[in-house]
């Protein structure tokens, strides 16, 4: 396997424009001859499917939910970044680029990030034209707010439902193409394998989740926009069904998996309340604009009513440790700081796993109405879940797994190491390095889907693609049989443990050994435990029913089986990366005051893992990261 990032030559500001000129095009009348399969209908998938159909390609689009509108992008709350400089506060493409590279702790590719910043403005324009009801000021112009890791206001938002509104915009564009005949939509359909013919991805195998029928689809290219793998931790802010299956299956067919250990723990989630909890709920980072994070100075105050703790007895630890960014320190830093104060025994709430997010000062300064307008739905959500009123008492928050920066390795054209397989959005690894800044996930998903893939996929068709095989090609039959065989095996076990119990056990192990802080001993313990857990799963899991029916336990079992394989790669990557950077914190590698110690001499590269067969160790390939525009430096938010 050779990693060639295909970064175009020339100055960074001109790379994308020159690349667009250099790529080969497919003429409008020829586009209808090409079939593309798009898996996933979140921001990246829906925008790509709609845009490809607008261009004239034949598109089939798949999602496991009952409607494409339900993909988990819908749950993104806070906003989307764009370098518009509408606030006149010194923003520019260059600054967004720098903030993103720095925020990613120098583990992202410069050229990709620059392009992301370049197209960010066009995303806002496109969404406004679709009728996305962004917040506006009294003059009728677009409003902005600040997000972590930036000192400018460049985040566009639609109350606390920005992801929902952007996704509905993309979904509506998709609906228009379904009606026009450009997209065939397959809801309640889960992708279970990629089919490779002649070294190129030429199709997928799917299961109809209603009838249980397995079928193959042939195409000229396959696009995965299937999101992240945060549910390997069981408890996360991801949707219940989010899984690694599509990317993991592609990995086993030849797509390298990059930087799986870069996982993001979001600092502001509602703390865990009980053992049966099935997911964690995020409270938007935008709350940190007006909320102040604190814990009691003294341990003995932790059980007290927060209102009775005097100002002098509170520790506003983010403001204290990071005076210039304060409560808006990047996510990895804010999360780790919360863990530290809780480890010191100063956490609040049940189990001492929580910190306060206090709006008292903002309520005095701005009034209840203003706060309600900005965050009303978040306060209401908090009350629904906890039964507490955050207008009266501070919220309690704690970090939770939220986003995964790692993903399938892609080149500048968003193509994986498996030719013809393109990967977009959270499913790829490319733009966020070791830590994603808030409001950049929506930006990247839409950049990939609306603007980048539609340009680069044509180049693949015009220059490299081999002819589309017929759907009765033996490779398709073989892949179908493999998928059916695997499902049959899961159903034949009839063991004594539930799928959920395995998923929960794996999640707990990953959170403890490979969560917010990692060390060699813990990772080695996890690597020893996971294969045993996998063996028990395949010998003792209980799935009832038959394959040819709607069988939700069977769906979950297939996903957990893949998590049980993937978790090992995640831990292996975390073990090999002997440095701390972004979301990957190795306790052996920290400065005296507890900050991450990056090692650019040894680890300024993308770790891309190649699958070498069942039971074989994966092979590590390194893509060196070169920083020509921004000098490598230690991050400081002090």
């Amino acid at each position, binding site marked *: 396997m050779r990693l060639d990032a295909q970064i175009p030559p020339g100055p960074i500001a001109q790379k994308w424009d020159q690349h667009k000129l250099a790529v080969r095009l497919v003429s409008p009348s020829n586009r209808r001859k090409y079939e593309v399969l798009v898996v996933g209908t979140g921001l990246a998938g829906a925008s790509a499917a709609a845009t490809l159909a607008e261009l004239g390609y034949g598109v089939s689009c798949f999602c496991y939910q009952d409607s494409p509108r339900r993909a988990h992008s819908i*749950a993104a709350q806070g906003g989307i970044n764009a370098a518009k400089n509408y606030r006149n506060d010194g923003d520019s493409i260059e600054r967004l680029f720098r903030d993103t590279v720095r925020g990613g702790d120098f583990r992202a590719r410069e050229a990709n990030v620059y392009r992301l910043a370049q197209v960010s403005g*066009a995303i806002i324009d496109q969404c406004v034209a679709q009728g996305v009801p962004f917040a*506006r000021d009294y003059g009728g112009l677009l409003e902005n707010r600040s997000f972590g890791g930036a000192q400018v206001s460049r985040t566009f938002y639609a109350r606390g439902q920005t992801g929902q*509104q952007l996704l509905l915009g993309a*979904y509506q564009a998709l609906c228009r193409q379904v009606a026009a005949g450009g997209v065939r939509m397959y809801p309640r359909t889960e992708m279970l394998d990629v089919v490779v013919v002649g070294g190129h991805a030429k199709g997928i195998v799917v299961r109809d989740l209603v009838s249980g029928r397995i079928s193959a689809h042939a195409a000229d290219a396959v696009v995965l926009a299937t999101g992240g793998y945060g549910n390997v931790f069981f408890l996360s802010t991801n949707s219940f069904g989010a899984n690694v299956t599509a990317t993991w299956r592609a990995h086993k067919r030849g797509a390298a998996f990059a930087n799986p250990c870069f996982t993001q723990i979001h600092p502001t989630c509602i703390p865990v309340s009980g053992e049966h909890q099935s997911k964690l709920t995020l409270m938007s980072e935008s709350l940190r604009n007006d909320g102040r994070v604190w814990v009691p100075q003294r341990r003995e105050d932790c059980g007290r009513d927060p209102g009775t703790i005097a100002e002098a007895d509170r520790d506003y630890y983010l403001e204290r440790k990071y005076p210039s960014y304060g409560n808006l320190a990047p996510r990895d830093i804010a999360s780790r700081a919360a863990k530290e104060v809780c480890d010191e025994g100063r956490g609040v709430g049940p189990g001492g796993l929580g910190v306060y997010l206090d709006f008292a000062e903002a309520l005095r300064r701005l009034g209840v109405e203003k706060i309600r307008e900005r965050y009303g739905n978040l306060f209401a959500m908090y009350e629904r879940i906890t039964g507490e009123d955050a207008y009266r008492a501070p919220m309690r928050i704690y970090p939770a797994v939220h986003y995964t920066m790692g993903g399938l390795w892609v080149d500048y054209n968003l193509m994986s190491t498996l030719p013809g397989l393109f990967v977009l959005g959270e499913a790829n690894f490319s733009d966020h390095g070791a830590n994603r800044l808030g409001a950049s996930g929506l930006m990247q998903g839409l950049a990939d889907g609306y603007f980048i893939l539609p340009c680069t996929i044509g180049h693949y068709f015009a220059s490299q693609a081999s002819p589309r095989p017929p759907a009765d090609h033996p490779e398709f039959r073989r892949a179908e049989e493999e998928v059916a065989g695997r499902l049959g095996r899961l159903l034949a076990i009839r063991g004594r443990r539930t799928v959920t119990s395995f998923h929960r056990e794996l999640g707990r192990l990953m959170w403890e050994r490979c969560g917010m802080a990692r060390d060699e001993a813990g990772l080695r313990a996890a690597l020893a435990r996971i294969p045993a857990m996998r063996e028990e799963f395949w010998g003792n899991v209980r799935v009832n029913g038959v394959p040819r029916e709607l069988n939700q336990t069977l769906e979950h079992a297939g996903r957990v089986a893949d998590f049980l394989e993937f978790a090992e790669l995640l831990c292996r990557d975390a073990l090999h990366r002997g440095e701390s950077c972004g979301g990957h914190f190795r306790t052996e590698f920290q400065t005296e005051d507890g900050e991450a110690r990056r090692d650019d001499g040894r680890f300024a590269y993308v770790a891309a893992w190649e699958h070498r067969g069942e039971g074989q160790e994966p092979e590590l390939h390194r893509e060196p990261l070169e920083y020509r525009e921004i000098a490598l430096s230690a991050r400081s938010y002090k």
Partner: protein
Amino acid sequence: MRLTLKVCRQKDAASAPTWETIEATGLSDGMSFLEMLDVVNDRLTLEGRDPIAFDSDCREGVCGCCALVINGSPHGGHRGTTVCQLHLRHFRDGETVVLEPWRAQAFPVIKDLIVDRGALDRIMQAGGFVSVNTGGAPDGNAMPIAKAAADRAMDAAVCIGCGACVAACKNASAMLFVGAKVSHLALLPQGRVERDRRALAMVQAMDEAGFGGCTVTGACAAVCPKEISLECIARLNREYGLAMLKGE
């Protein structure tokens, strides 16, 4: 804490529904309603029985997947709350809880508590969009939009497409769903170009899908987890009427 569940079960689209009584034990009031069903399903699975099929995904009230009628009320009857955000502290220990799927001709049952809501997608495909291709959009600030209009559009745009409005309506009408989308787009200048065609096409698709007519009882708005206002139906009627008069 324990509950007695009376669940309407149906093996598949072709089978007849039956009622089954299932005891849910070992619960705590901090659990969500769906977590309670997870616990019940794990037990049923280990007993070799078929777990209760139900839809859910985001479990934070925004994807619109979850769809249960609890004690006769879609989403369980708590204001502004989807089933996935409903917690057991709202139930009494030992209470009997009746669970049914969304019931409407346009929402055929697939299995147990899962229905096919594809009809809502078909309505959206008929006209629930602005016809702009990716690319040629003008600058986002080229067209100022009054804050009040943008806010009202957002009030309608927060619809999650769950279909509770249909399930609550004695006519199984989808007018609140359609009204929300028509309102969102008609309130913004970007959506006005196609307003007439949109209103006519979406109403026609709604009728063809088998949803009933609206008699403005307001049951839809009362159960809407996003508290979409009946105003949306009034606006839809106005948009539709004007389009008819114009003879579009």
